[in-house]
């Protein structure tokens, strides 16, 4: 690749005339329909065996130029799909080698790597699409959002629903006053169990004894990344089920919260909460609990009344509202907005007759070209994406992840005596100092440098 010192981002945004210098892989040219290759951005994927692969499929209109995964067997399908993309195991090596070829990076590693990979990319001026939740800790989300703002890169968190028509209609209906002031919102998910016959992923379990041989295709040390080293045991952590472990994932709340709490943030214009309170089934230092309830209290915002956000997981639901007609499903995942003048359940006014009568709210929000396209447009210098880190996703992820702090086993006894009170200015819990270390985490030796990079570089 022949780009020399010019960054691709600057190039894409400002100097289309230089396009001819960009050498584009042949397969892209072959498959590229109408758009000139030069209008495409060059994307790398990090963590591509799971959701990352799905993200890349949604970005296939662009150039997929490099792929990176700590497990090449898990990544094999994605490698096959993009045969001309360079293959890497270590994202650091990839970023070094591909620096000049990349415009953006799609990060879909386990949660505990999100901030590190994303930050490494941002520091190189790359645009970042990062899966939800944005990060593993509250502080990482804050720093990452700040870094993205400073670097002026285009960002998008992987909560696709934010781009939907449904989210827009919900906001517009509530802003239209259709249910009056909203004082309570209930959000629930069936995760970590699917309620049929198996786990999405286990929670409430302890670390297994023993150790299995590490498959040749897997770089276990790299998967562990900044987390404390632990023995490899097959199927316990990788793939996918890392979600239930404190060291790697963010549990049901982290997984689904950024999807389902996102509309609450938008519709009710939420910021930081004033308090966080949680209760859960038995919890240990290894995995998140089987079920939890988290309650956030938000202060008044301008003309908007204070609101309490109630989170339920593990299959627990709020009481079925009397306005929900007999025979209508009280869903396994849902959202109920309770206002002074009515209720909205999964995006519809209750009862359904009320919704029909109401029809559609006045349109106030621009419609989205699609969640992934929003990011592509932003990468090309267009409007910031709807779930960009500095304006939205950073805060959303911080608030979601605060709930997990309130579930920490080490704080459980203490939190029988108080709820957590949050000081947004001071970025700390004021009344339980023991909780503040959980805003961040310890990084394993060798990763600390990268972490410093996050703060100081």
């Amino acid at each position, binding site marked *: 690749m022949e780009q020399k010192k010019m960054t691709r981002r600057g190039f894409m945004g400002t100097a289309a005339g230089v396009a001819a210098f960009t050498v584009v892989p042949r397969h892209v040219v072959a498959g590229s329909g109408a758009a000139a290759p030069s209008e495409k951005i060059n994307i790398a994927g990090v963590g591509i065996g799971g959701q990352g692969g799905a993200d890349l499929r949604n970005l296939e209109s662009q150039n997929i130029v490099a792929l990176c995964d700590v497990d090449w067997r898990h990544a094999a399908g994605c490698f096959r799909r993009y045969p001309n993309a360079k293959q890497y195991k270590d994202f650091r090596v990839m970023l070094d080698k591909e620096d000049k070829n990349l415009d953006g990076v799609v990060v879909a590693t386990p949660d505990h790597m999100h901030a590190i990979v994303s930050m490494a990319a941002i520091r190189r001026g790359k645009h970042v699409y990062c899966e939800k939740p944005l990060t593993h800790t509250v502080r990482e989300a804050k720093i990452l959002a700040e870094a993205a703002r400073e670097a002026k890169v285009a960002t998008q968190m992987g909560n696709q629903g934010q781009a939907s028509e449904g989210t827009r209609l919900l906001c517009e209906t509530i802003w239209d006053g259709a249910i009056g002031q909203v004082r309570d919102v209930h959000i629930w998910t069936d995760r970590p169990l699917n309620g049929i016959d198996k786990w999405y992923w286990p929670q409430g379990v302890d670390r297994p004894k023993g150790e299995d041989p590490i498959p040749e295709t897997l770089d276990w040390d790299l998967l562990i990344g900044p987390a404390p080293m632990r023995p490899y045991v097959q199927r316990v952590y990788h793939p996918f089920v890392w979600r239930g472990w404190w060291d790697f994932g963010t549990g049901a709340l982290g997984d689904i919260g950024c999807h389902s709490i996102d509309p609450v943030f938008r519709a009710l214009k939420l910021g930081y909460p004033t308090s966080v309170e949680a209760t*859960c*089934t038995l919890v240990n230092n290894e995995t998140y609990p089987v*079920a939890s309830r988290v309650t956030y209290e938000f202060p008044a915002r301008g003309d908007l009344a204070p609101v309490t956000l109630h989170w339920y997981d593990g299959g627990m639901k709020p009481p079925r509202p009397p306005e929900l007609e007999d025979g209508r499903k009280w869903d396994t995942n849902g959202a109920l907005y309770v206002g002074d003048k009515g209720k909205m359940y999964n995006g519809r006014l209750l009862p359904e007759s009320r919704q029909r009568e109401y029809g559609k709210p006045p349109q106030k929000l621009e419609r989205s070209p699609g969640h992934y396209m929003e990011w592509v447009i932003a990468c090309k210098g267009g409007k910031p994406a709807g779930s960009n880190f500095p304006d939205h996703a950073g805060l959303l992820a911080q608030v979601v992840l605060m709930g997990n702090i309130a579930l920490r086993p080490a704080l459980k006894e203490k939190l029988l005596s108080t709820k957590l009170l949050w000081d947004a200015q001071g970025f700390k819990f004021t009344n339980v100092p023991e909780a503040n270390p959980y805003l961040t985490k310890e990084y394993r030796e060798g990763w600390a440098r990268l972490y410093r990079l996050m703060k100081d570089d």
Partner: protein
Amino acid sequence: MMVDSIDRRKFLCGTAGAVAAFTIVPNHVLAGAAGQRPSDKLNLAAIGIGGMGASNINACSSENFVALCDADDQYAGKVFDKLPDARKYKDFRVMLDKEDKNIDGVIIATPDHTHAVVAMACIKRRKHIYLQKPLAHSIGEVRKLTEAAREAGIQTQMGNQGHSSEEIRLLCEWLADGAIGPVREVYTWSDRPVGGDPWSDFPIMARPKETPEVPKSLDWDLWLGPAQHRPYHPIYHPMSWRGFWDFGTGALGDMGCHIIDPAFWALKLGQPTRVEATTTHYQPEIAAETYPRASIVRYEFPARGNMPPVKLTWLDGRLMPPRPRDLEPGRRLDGNGAIFLGDKGTIIHGSHGAGGLRIVPETKMKAYKRPEKTIPRVNRGQSGHEQDWVRACKNGKPASSSFEYGGPLTEMVLLGVLAMRLKDQPLEWDPVNLKVTNVPEADKYINPPFREGWTL
């Protein structure tokens, strides 16, 4: 024992004191009796004595134990050894046949699923009964026992010992005094089924596949009683049966009769009009066997007299209620307890019989001018619960938690258990006819079928 055909129950209720001399009392009782005439003593039997029964027996050591019965004579061994003169049985039916004339009253502390058949057999013979909580395993059974006991005119007591406490009476008096104004919301909770000790930890599991041999000491068929047959496994007995649908009533059945008891009495709750439960997931193979890891049950009680409607919430599995505003920061909520939210204040208490009762914050407690004590006290409070029954058997005045009270309390508690079966939908309750009017499927849990050979 040489007791003749005199009706001991009648005798003990005070109608035939002169005949007392005919009763022959075992020597060991005479030796230990200090001041009490042997003839004043009840002749008691106990069924299900290895666990809680042992402690109930202990509390009645002032009386004569003439017969003891347990389906597992090894588990019962310690109690057998302690009362060597009592005759020992495995089958309560055989015991009742043989000892009919010798027994005034029976203490019953079998697993929940056999409460009803054992108690009904005793009621039919007009024996007084002390029956562990919850009164029975299904709502239908509770109603039948309550009615049968009333008809038989026997003295009854349910084993919710907290009901004899000082604090539960204080709660009634304070609420009646308007200490916190009208109460519209109550939270009750228990850390079970994961309380952290063998008594309060119930398993959450699929049905065991292994079929180990039944220990010689145990009559497994009898232990199963009216429950559907299944192979023996040590996980069920002793203790852990509480976590299984077929045998126990879960955390709510286990602790609800203790923890909701104060609200039920003090607020004169009666039966709810609606109840709705949500729980952690039911995985089919596990759900068919054991109660969920955690549940939230929400009851709605209508207005009673001048008292407003009440929403009462039950939480278990270590789920805690929201922290009440009046509770001082730093003040701990216990693993089991209740919160009353009134228009003018908040009351909290702990697990049994409103223990640890306080108005919060403490400044308000201190400033509270306590009303006069108007409700009769039970001698020695909740430690005197069994003796209160003994007293009732002797003087004919009902015990503190007779079935007239314990029955309706248990019906309400078990309705919550039913709501867990039919979770995430409000159940409209007709307490007169014991019907969930909007979910006909509920019938099979209200009056579940008995195994062949067992009836009430």
